[in-house]
């Protein structure tokens, strides 16, 4: 099992969710986050005060999948979240040791 953590542009969420649903992914966690990468930030000016805003709003999505689904899910996220512009985000993949569905006590593959 793998845990996929992706940072994407907020307006791409629906497209990504639809494509993962189509692949049979049953759940996803979304968090509003701020961060920076190569895109850096921008400048905001309030009357005479200029502020460099280094952290931009992004969404972090977390999806746990069976290992065999990994490459399809990664492909789906990277194609749907892509605009070709700087700041499209990143996908991180980590091994997942254990999963438990709290309601039923099912574990691992059955819990996904």
């Amino acid at each position, binding site marked *: 099992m793998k845990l996929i953590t992706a940072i994407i542009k907020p307006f791409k969420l629906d497209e990504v969710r639809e494509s993962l649903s189509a692949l049979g992914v049953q759940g996803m966690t979304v968090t509003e986050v701020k961060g920076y990468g190569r895109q850096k930030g921008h400048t905001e*000016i*309030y*009357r*005479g*005060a200029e*502020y460099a*805003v280094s952290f931009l709003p992004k969404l972090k999505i977390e999806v746990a999948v069976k290992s065999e689904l990994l490459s399809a899910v990664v492909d789906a996220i990277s194609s749907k979240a892509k605009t070709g512009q700087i700041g499209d985000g990143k996908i991180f993949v980590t091994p997942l040791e254990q999963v438990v569905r709290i309601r039923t006590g099912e574990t691992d593959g059955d819990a996904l």
Partner: protein
Amino acid sequence: MRIETLKKAGLAALAGVGTLAMSAGAAFAATAPVPDKGDTTWMLVSTILVLLMIVPGLALFYGGLVRTKNMLSILTQTLVITCIVMVVWALWGYSEAFTDGAGLNAYVGGFSKALLKGVDTATTVETFSRGVVIPEIVFVCFQMTFAAITTALVIGSFAERMKFSAICIFAVLWPTLVYFPIAHMVWWWPGPEFASTHPADATAAGAGMIWAWGALDFAGGTVVHINAGIAALVGALLCGKRLGYKQEPMAPHSLTLTMVGAALLWVGWFGFNAGSNLEANGYAGLAMLNTFLATAAAGVAWPAVEWILKGKPSLLGAASGVVAGLVAITPAAGFAGPMGAIVLGLVVSPICLFFVSVVKNKLGYDDSLDVFGVHCIGGIVGAIATGIVVNPALGGAGIVDYTAGGAAVYPGLVPQVISQLKGVATTIAWSGIGSLIVFGLIKVTIGLRVKEEVEREGLDIAEHGERAYNM
């Protein structure tokens, strides 16, 4: 407030200013004039419009500009200052501003109407026309809101760092030492009936000093805006800069609320400016038209200059321009012609923008919400320009001689602008020194500033035990 020209022994010049209106029209007239119901209604409505400017208008305009952790402190300060000043106004403020001060009459009124003694439903005050009066009680209410908003305006410069206890004391001392005397100097005049029946001393005619100089201030450019702006600068300097000023971002937490506040200020300002006419007539209409046009022109000019210089027109720029335009047209509201008002609006925005961006950054003072840069500078621009745009040759209304019921006159550019400058200089000096005394006294007694940890945590929780938003 309106104006008058008083004739002094053949010298036709001198214009009085402002609001005026004195009581006891009945004492001088052979038959006591009766208030017109239309005038009275308009003044009742105007009074409530000025209240709308303060709460929620000014509170939201300022509140949106501070950080989330200090939003509630601004709302509380604005509301409580308003309440304190209203009580003080009834106890001694009205009497201090709008009665004869005997030996000190050039500077301040007396205490003959302290606790509103003698003010009842039968007493009236003269407006600017002979034989026209409004109920004195209505005038008391109308002017009460001016005292309240002027005091509340000051807090923007030291927002996010002054102790609430210091602000409460300020709300009692500052009007007493600064606002009431300046209101007296600029607006106190016993009225056209008195002036007509005391021709020998008509110019002085018991008026306050600045009025007697002929300085024009229709609705409070000097009394309200220059006055509050200077006090704000003094307060900011004595209080010191916010922790992290220039080092950490202090972006406005909600320009949405600032926009709502600016819009409410504009709506309420019709009571302020057109209400200052004291009568529901064509001059009130002129003040309304100018309050639309100068504001609109300034609201276009500010973001336009930003667009040219910085690449983007901003909402805060448009809202700041609207306020700057309102400030600038305040002294000229019933004097300028509509085209003069547009020019005034176009001119004031770039000047204020220059002060809040270039000058403030150069000098390094922390006027948090730009009270000095917008209200004082915009007020000075408006006060001086009033002496120019009032000229009938430029489409202005001229200075109407109500005493004689004659036509509009204009003493000439140089004499009128000099009168205006004298009014501005006196206001700056009185308010500067008076505010220094008030803030200085508070600083050496209970202190002006919150503790460092309070400032870091935010005034909302530390000073008031609440937050603006629980989300």
